[in-house]
């Protein structure tokens, strides 16, 4: 064990002393930090402007009312989330903002608007908002009406209007709410609804389906209203028909329960799976490079005169394991520190994810599968290093091996986006080289005790076999020069002693 620790310490120090290690260690937190900063500070606003020329006079007020109602729906949804996050529902349990799904229910939305919207709600909530809670911020309006120059607004020719408005759509325009792209220009002809009299829409090339759907929806309703009235339905009745919405009552599990709970509980294990993949492959490559250097420098013989090849092999695995764990700890530490020091949605999600891992066995299982996955991958890299004289040699082994390794995992990752317990993931749970990755993916969504025990035994046996085979390979090949054939490799794996 002393020899193993000596080798491990040397390996650890050697890698930590390289510039590449520090670049890798810092690049992930740095990249996350920069991307968060960029997205929060420099991300383009989702708001767009639109121009409406309504020669018919039938759509203008209808569209504005609809956009305002949609905006209030957005306000209610975010306010309800805020109230739930800071546990303010007790202020008025019957209020629309005290229910998570109320924004989906038209009468509730109407009640919210009738009661004065966000301003009135915040007045009631403010005395109960905890000091650490940030101020509720009204969401940004997505659509802003832009009044075009008079000469454009008064045209009666849609083609001329289109030609005149198109140049404005190429750049951002100045509106009352600031600069933003002009996304849509809508022209409603005077005889809209008559045969062949279509509304015209010009876009800036970036398809804005949200606004376009609203426009089409409201135009359709206007046409439907015309048909109803022509059929003898009174104007008031026709309007009532159009505003009808099926009453629904939505019952959702409380936050942190049922399906939502499984998703929340999966965040950390799945993140760990991705981190495992990144660190194992990165540090495995470093180990590969180190071993090839030792082989090409011909210094292995000096080392092997002092210690057994298995001690050298295990020392390398341990040293590299230490490097990998160190990287994970630093990355995880940065992520937790960044999330906890901020009070945004990421911090909330992370806090909930940690809280969701409320059973100690889950932490144990996560650590076990992480270490097992790391060991399995590192051993493969070490085996390749023991057979290679140069990085070129190593690449010829590494390509097919990584392909075999990565392809099923990519399929699994895609499948697990829909269902963490997909058939692919379940099957891969029982193929040892994929077991740690599949089990980390499934851990949060519930696995049976039998599966946990079974896969643990399987992985332990596989790693033991892997170490024995690698030991033989290592002993037989580290002092050999040249690239062995497949038959040689198999013979080395079978050989008990050199």
């Amino acid at each position, binding site marked *: 064990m002393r020899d193993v620790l000596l080798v491990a310490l040397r390996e650890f120090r050697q890698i930590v002393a390289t510039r590449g290690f520090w670049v890798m260690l810092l690049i992930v937190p740095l990249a996350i930090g920069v991307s968060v900063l960029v997205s929060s500070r420099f991300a383009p606003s989702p708001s767009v402007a639109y121009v409406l020329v309504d020669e018919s006079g039938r759509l203008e007020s209808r569209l504005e009312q609809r956009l305002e109602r949609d905006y209030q729906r957005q306000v209610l949804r975010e306010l309800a989330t805020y109230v739930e996050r800071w546990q303010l529902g007790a202020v008025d349990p019957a209020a629309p903002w005290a229910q998570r799904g109320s924004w989906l229910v038209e009468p509730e939305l109407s009640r919210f608007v009738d009661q004065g919207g966000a301003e009135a709600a915040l007045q009631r909530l403010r005395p109960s908002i905890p000091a650490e809670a940030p101020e509720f911020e009204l969401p940004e309006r997505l659509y802003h009406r832009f009044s075009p120059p008079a000469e454009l607004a008064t045209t009666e020719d849609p083609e001329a209007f289109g030609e005149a408005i198109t140049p404005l759509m190429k750049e951002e325009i100045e509106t009352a709410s600031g600069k933003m792209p002009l996304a849509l220009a809508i022209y409603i002809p005077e005889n809209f609804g008559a045969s062949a009299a279509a509304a015209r829409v010009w876009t800036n090339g970036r398809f804005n389906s949200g606004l376009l759907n609203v426009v089409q929806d409201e135009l359709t309703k206007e046409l439907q209203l015309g048909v109803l009235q022509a059929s003898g339905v009174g104007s008031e009745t026709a309007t009532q028909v159009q505003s009808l919405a099926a009453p629904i009552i939505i019952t959702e599990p409380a936050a942190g329960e049922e399906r939502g709970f499984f998703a929340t509980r999966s965040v950390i294990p799945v993140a760990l799976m991705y981190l495992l993949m990144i660190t194992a492959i990165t540090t495995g490559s470093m180990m590969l490079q180190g071993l090839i250097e030792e082989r090409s420098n011909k210094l292995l013989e000096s080392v092997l*005169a002092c210690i057994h090849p298995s001690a050298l092999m295990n020392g390398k695995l341990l040293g590299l394991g230490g490097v990998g764990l160190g990287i994970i700890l630093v990355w995880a530490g940065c992520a937790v520190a960044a999330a906890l020091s901020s009070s945004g949605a990421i911090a909330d999600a992370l806090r909930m994810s940690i809280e969701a891992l409320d059973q100690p066995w889950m932490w144990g299982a996560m650590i076990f599968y992480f270490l097992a996955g790391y060991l399995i991958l590192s051993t493969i890299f070490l085996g390749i290093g023991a057979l290679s004289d140069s990085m070129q040699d190593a690449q010829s082994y590494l390509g097919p091996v990584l392909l075999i390794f990565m392809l099923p995992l990519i399929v699994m990752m895609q499948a697990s986006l829909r269902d963490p317990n997909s058939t692919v993931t379940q099957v891969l749970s029982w193929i040892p080289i994929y077991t740690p990755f599949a089990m980390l993916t499934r851990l949060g969504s519930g696995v049976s005790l039998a599966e946990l025990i079974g896969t643990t035994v399987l992985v332990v046996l596989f790693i033991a076999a892997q170490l024995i085979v690698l030991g033989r390979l290592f002993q037989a090949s580290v002092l050999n020069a040249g690239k062995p054939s497949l038959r040689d490799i198999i013979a080395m794996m079978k050989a008990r002693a050199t």
Partner: protein
Amino acid sequence: MPAEGGDNLNRAILSFESVTKRFGDFTAVHELSFAVQEGGVFGFLGGNGAGKTTSLRMALDILRPSEGRIEVLGRIPSRENAAEIGFLPEERGLYRNMKVLDTVVYFGRLKGMEPGAARKSALELLERFGLADRTKSPVGKLSKGMAQKVQLATALVNSPRLLLLDEPFSGLDPVNQTILEDAITDAARNASTVVFSTHVMQHAERLCDRLLLLAQGRKVFDGTKDEARAALPSRLTLTSRLDPASLPSVSEARLVWSHDDGWAEYQVELRPGSEPGELLETCTQQGFALRSFDITRPTLHEVFIHFVGAEQEIVR
């Protein structure tokens, strides 16, 4: 050729007894038996592929023999012996990014030394090899000669009882060869037994007390330098007026050149078992006039050629 007996093996610091090593169908070492007694310098001589490196690797337990028995320091080969062994492999290399002192200390630690003792010994060796001011330099920044000294220090750091050197002079310039020769002599003087393999006879002539000649994995000679030379008759060159072929101990006399005044130089081969001194005595007794009488002992190179054959790759 001296024979080694069981007692000899029992007292030896390194012994091979009917050791064979096969790699698949190829036999690298065949039925090899020899013993190295404690103290002195023992040479492993042979051309390329003679089995020198394989034998040393078996002594270090890097390779296991297919048959036979090896004892090192009175024990079977294992890493347990590493604390008392120093080893310099033929193909040398060091961790390029590691500092000089750390490298030597690391190898001392691998051989079981405590950190303090390893550091003290490493500093002394680096001082001795003129590298005291380079202790913090990465090995990759050293010249080749300096790096080889560092490598030698890694072999000597544990003050080994048995120092195994595999082709230690290969790739060294004359200055560093001298330094290494001094180090080998010092090590032998300081109670280490030095075993080194070489195919350069010059080094063996200067350093070895005993020799083992290998050819294609087989032992062809084992004994002292004098015993090796005695295996070939000495060459005698004399200048006389008469042909020495008729003298009793002479088997053949070849005329090299002759002068107008009647004196001629002959290269003489003696009959087996005859000594040049006896011939000189006979000449004096018989009044056989001599102007010169030069005895030339056979070189190790000639001994090697005699035993192994001229086709083996060796260097004088």
